[in-house]
């Protein structure tokens, strides 16, 4: 055993002092909403460029790994793709019909604000934080690029999350599948509103998120109906696609329904996102932070 010098201050005192500092910090941040301020900015100055570099390297490796394939593999993939192209073509013709119907319904509803109208900026995901318990990530754009807290974030397919923290050149995004996330949404077909809540359990079991509070007396809402952000949401701009209804159950009160939604974004493999540079903020109690 190496002989250790006697410490001038007993270890318990140091433990007590550091514990007190932590508890004070917790109270202070709870009371003032402090989350690091200048210190966060300083830490970000050091780590964000490194995270960017690492992500760049990792993406490079992934690409070179996925590019290295044999002729047989390529042929097999080609066959699979040809089949997929067939089914996609079929789907496309269906979609075109749907699109025509959609246009017609949209004009009927005077609902012209789809998210193609919002101004967006692209960003790379450079880090994923908070381990396996929460779902958040860091992007490589921040205040300097016009990003602010509460701006909505999209993946290539639909709604992905919301900006919760910004620095000069980074921003933290909490995804909609995070266990603490709540989004006010509506079923696109019937305009019935519901609350979309991220849930670690549903996500883990079947890559799904929960919804609740759906009022649907006429049983008009069906499985597979798309869910979009609602116009009464106080943080999300309306009309962003969240996902499709997968499971609908009647609640015990027989008034509302709850169930599960399959989100359109693939939250395990997000590498690029779009941030909507337009905010919707109406103070209300409806949506939890």
């Amino acid at each position, binding site marked *: 055993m190496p002989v250790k010098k006697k410490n001038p201050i007993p270890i318990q005192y140091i433990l007590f002092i550091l514990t007190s500092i932590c*508890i004070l910090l917790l109270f202070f941040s709870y009371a003032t909403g402090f989350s690091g301020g200048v210190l966060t900015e300083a830490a970000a100055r050091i780590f964000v460029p490194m995270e960017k570099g690492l992500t760049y390297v990792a993406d490079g490796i992934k690409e070179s790994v996925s590019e290295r394939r044999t002729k047989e593999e390529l042929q097999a993939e080609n066959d699979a793709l040809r089949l997929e192209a067939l089914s996609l073509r079929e789907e496309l013709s269906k979609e075109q019909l749907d699109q025509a119907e959609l246009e017609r319904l949209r004009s009927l509803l005077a609902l012209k604000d789809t998210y193609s109208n919002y101004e967006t900026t692209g960003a790379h995901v450079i880090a994923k934080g908070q381990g396996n318990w929460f779902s958040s990530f860091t992007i490589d754009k921040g205040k300097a690029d016009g990003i602010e807290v509460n701006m909505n974030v999209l993946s290539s397919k639909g709604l992905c999350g919301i900006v919760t923290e910004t620095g000069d050149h980074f921003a933290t995004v909490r995804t909609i599948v995070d266990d603490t996330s709540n989004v006010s949404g509506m079923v696109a077909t019937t305009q019935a509103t519901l609350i979309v809540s991220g849930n670690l359990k549903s996500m883990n079991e079947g890559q799904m998120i929960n919804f609740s509070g759906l009022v649907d007396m006429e049983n008009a809402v069906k499985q597979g109906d798309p869910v979009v952000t609602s116009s009464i949401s106080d943080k999300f701009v309306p009309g962003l696609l969240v996902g499709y209804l997968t499971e609908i159950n009647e609640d015990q009160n027989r008034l509302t329904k709850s169930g599960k939604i399959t989100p359109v974004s693939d939250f395990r493999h997000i590498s690029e996102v779009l941030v909507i540079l337009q905010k919707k903020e109406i103070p209300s109690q409806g949506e939890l932070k």
Partner: protein
Amino acid sequence: MSSFRHILKRILITAGLIALVFLLQESVFPHLALGGITPNCVIILVCFAGFSNGALEGMLVGFFSGILLDLMHGQYFGMYALLYLYIGFLNGSFRKFFFGEDLKLPLLFTGLSDIIYGFVIYFFLFFTRQKTDVLFYIKSIIIPEAVYTMLVTVALYVPLLLIYNFMGKQKQRETKIIV
């Protein structure tokens, strides 16, 4: 003042290690997730610092790693600092079981620490929000994370031991590993 230079060197190297495991956890292992689970790299360093150099170093490494995590993901600022502070302290208190050469005990303690970490996070951030299905969280988050973390510990143990032996040059120790 050779002892001052020695301490400064240790602080700098330890800071570098904290930065390194932070980057590993945030930007490298998300690409290597197994079934959506990533290992807890920070806890590996905190445990290692504790059981190789005692409670004081474990506490300090834990506290500052935690502060870094809090800064970058400030949900409840001070939460990770408090948690890792105690993990470092506990592992440091068990120092007398370790002689640096045996891999089994450090592995076990890192795994256990990660399980404790999981339970604390579950209790304070999930159970308090009426998410009561403990078994689910144990089965699909806490245990897989601990197992993956232990696997990564095996890979990181020798490099960490070498770095720590380099830092503690004055008290030369053998770097033989017994598995």
